């Protein structure tokens, strides 16, 4: 196989393997921000999800078997994320509390809890999620491993259009958008902004927790304290890049997932200089997106009207 083709397949494989956490966190943040709140704490939620998924999968394997244990882990990741979400949802809606500041506190709380509780799980091996081997038709091991796709990734891909439809065509979606754009109007309609925001933050944190499960139970499939490498924070930035549109979140996640594979893939075909530069590609991309989308003249199209506003009494 030519080096160029190998490189392309390598990056494609990296995209399919590595974008699931971005996807889940960015979709979660999309729901949260649509309701008018920012949850920076998803970085902590991601770590907490990764830890609880791995821990539960490891601990439950003897009782429920190697097949169901990781799925229990995924559920645990979602629930632990949701619990963190409740804290953020309640705190960030108090009078004169800034949700960005609360989010930073939640990063520290989430990661600290995950590191503390995760100590015993660094060493053992937990059962991993099953994968769909769609590459059986090919006899190239590269293609086979590229097309070994996680069901979580497929679920994430399905959630994106579902959310899009939810926001556009359902009553619930309308509630979320109403609360996000104009809480007063929503209140006048008889909707409680507090409850809607609380539920949106919880749903978002649930998804972010599952994103963590992708890290620890699929790829790279271990629990270590360095597992997230800032992916939760990047995913928050990615939502702005995607203009609060779930479908675009999907494309943006794929892009970010792919950039992670660039450094190793280039070195493996012999382009061995500048790997530090390739490795920072996702961060540079984040900065560029921020600069491009940050215009002093206008607000961003698609941005929820009440995003970042002070809480009403």
């Amino acid at each position, binding site marked *: 196989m030519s080096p160029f083709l*190998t490189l392309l397949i*390598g990056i494609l494989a*990296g995209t399919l*393997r*590595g974008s699931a956490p971005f996807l889940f966190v960015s979709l979660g943040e999309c729901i949260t921000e649509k309701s008018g709140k*920012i949850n*920076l704490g998803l*970085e902590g939620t991601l770590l907490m999800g990764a830890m609880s998924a791995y821990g539960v999968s490891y601990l439950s394997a003897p009782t429920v078997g190697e097949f169901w244990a990781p799925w229990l882990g995924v559920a645990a990741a979602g629930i632990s994320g949701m619990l963190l979400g409740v804290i953020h949802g309640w705190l960030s809606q108090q009078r004169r509390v800034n949700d*960005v500041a609360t*989010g*930073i506190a939640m990063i520290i709380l989430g990661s600290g809890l995950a*590191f*503390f509780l995760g100590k015993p799980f*660094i*060493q053992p*091996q937990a059962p991993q999620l099953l994968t769909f081997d769609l590459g059986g038709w090919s006899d190239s*091991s*590269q293609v086979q*491993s590229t097309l070994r796709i996680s069901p979580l990734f497929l679920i994430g891909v399905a959630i994106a259009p579902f959310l899009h439809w939810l926001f556009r065509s359902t009553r619930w979606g309308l509630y979320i958008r109403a609360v996000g754009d*104009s809480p007063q109007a929503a209140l006048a309609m008889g909707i409680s902004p507090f409850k809607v925001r609380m539920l949106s933050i919880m749903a978002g944190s649930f998804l972010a927790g599952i994103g963590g499960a992708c890290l620890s139970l699929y*790829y*790279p*499939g*271990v629990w*270590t*304290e*360095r*597992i*997230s*490498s*800032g992916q939760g*924070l*990047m995913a*928050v*930035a990615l939502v702005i890049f995607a203009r609060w549109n779930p479908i675009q979140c999907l494309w943006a996640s794929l892009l970010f997932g792919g950039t*992670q594979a660039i*450094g*190793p*893939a280039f*070195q*493996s075909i*012999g382009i*061995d*200089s*500048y*790997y*530090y530069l390739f*490795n920072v590609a996702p*961060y540079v991309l984040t*900065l560029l997106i*921020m600069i491009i*989308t*940050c*215009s002093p003249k206008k*607000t*961003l199209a698609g*941005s929820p009207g009440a*995003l*970042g506003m*002070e809480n009403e009494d």
Partner: protein
Amino acid sequence: MSRSIRFSRRQVVRGLLATTAFGAATKLSGCSPSSEAGDDTSSAAGGSEEVIVGFIYVGPKDDFGYNQAHAEGAQAMAAVPGIRIIEEENVPETSAVLETMRSMIEIDGATVIFPTSFGYFDPYMLEMAAEFPEVQFFHAGGLYQEDIHPNNVGSYFGYIDEAQYVSGVVAGHMSETGQLGFVAAIPIPQVLRNINSFTLGARSINPAATTQVIFTGGWAEPIKEAEATNSMADQGIDVINCHVDSPKVVMETAEERGLYTVGYHANQAPLAPTGYLTGAEWDWESIYTALGQQFVEGKTLMAGDIDHVLRGGLAENFCKLSPYGPAVTAEAQADGEAAKEALVNGDLVIYKGELDSNDGEAILAADEEYEQQNIELEKMDWLIEGVKGSVGS
């Protein structure tokens, strides 16, 4: 409603940007100090009876890797009567380590400090050594230079590349394609030396063997390590070795792809039961126990009772090989054992002429050789012929 319009979108975006940068900076360095000092409070002031030794690790103590190897050694030192150890894990190679060292010295009363990670040395450990001339500092690595660095600084390190050479011999036998892979963190001398020795070992069996190196750019980058292993598997590489803090990800990914693996730091056979060939393991227990006894006897670096540079290889029990895995053939095992024997006896010198670097520079002429103790090897900035990769970043 109108009062809140002032919070414009771009302020939000700026806020996000700033916090992302802040968060990334603090998070990525992963600081969560968790001192496991048992009974600190008991004898901070009056503890002149026992020697208090501080160990600082860059990652978790049970990472199947570098830190675990040191932590096991530290436990062995703790067993020496008269020694009490205090430990702190997950200390980043930033000014955070200054604070850790300072509090170990000033609060816990430590008189010997072992900052075990490479990047702690300059400037952090040197700064502390200048400030506390009565405290001894021991660094694992080859950065110490006599005459330049303070008298209370010592350096210890094992010639683990001897074990890498033997692993290379086994890998050279087992590889069908003759293509070996090496997932490395950062191009520093110790890493390059492992890569070179591994390659030399493999080429002593199969002169056409090559080693592809991928640098991840950091000691703990789980996703990049997995990506690197996968992309090497895609290239047709069939033996993977690594030098990162925790080889767990590399071992598991390689096992999943059906590759042979060579471990590092500690025994990783449980992670890759079918493909594990052998591995280069640290054996800090003997050296730490010996040093602990010397501390109790009141010996110090400053008085010249303890050597400033402590080095050793397979013969001196600074390192060892993992037991051979089930896949290793009898022939490979025999050659591996022969190479090990020759290294222990001193009959075999790994770096001998004629040796060229992979960019065509001559390293050693036909009649020259670098003994293991040669300081040139600790300044290594070249990759030998047969290694695919470059030391430049």
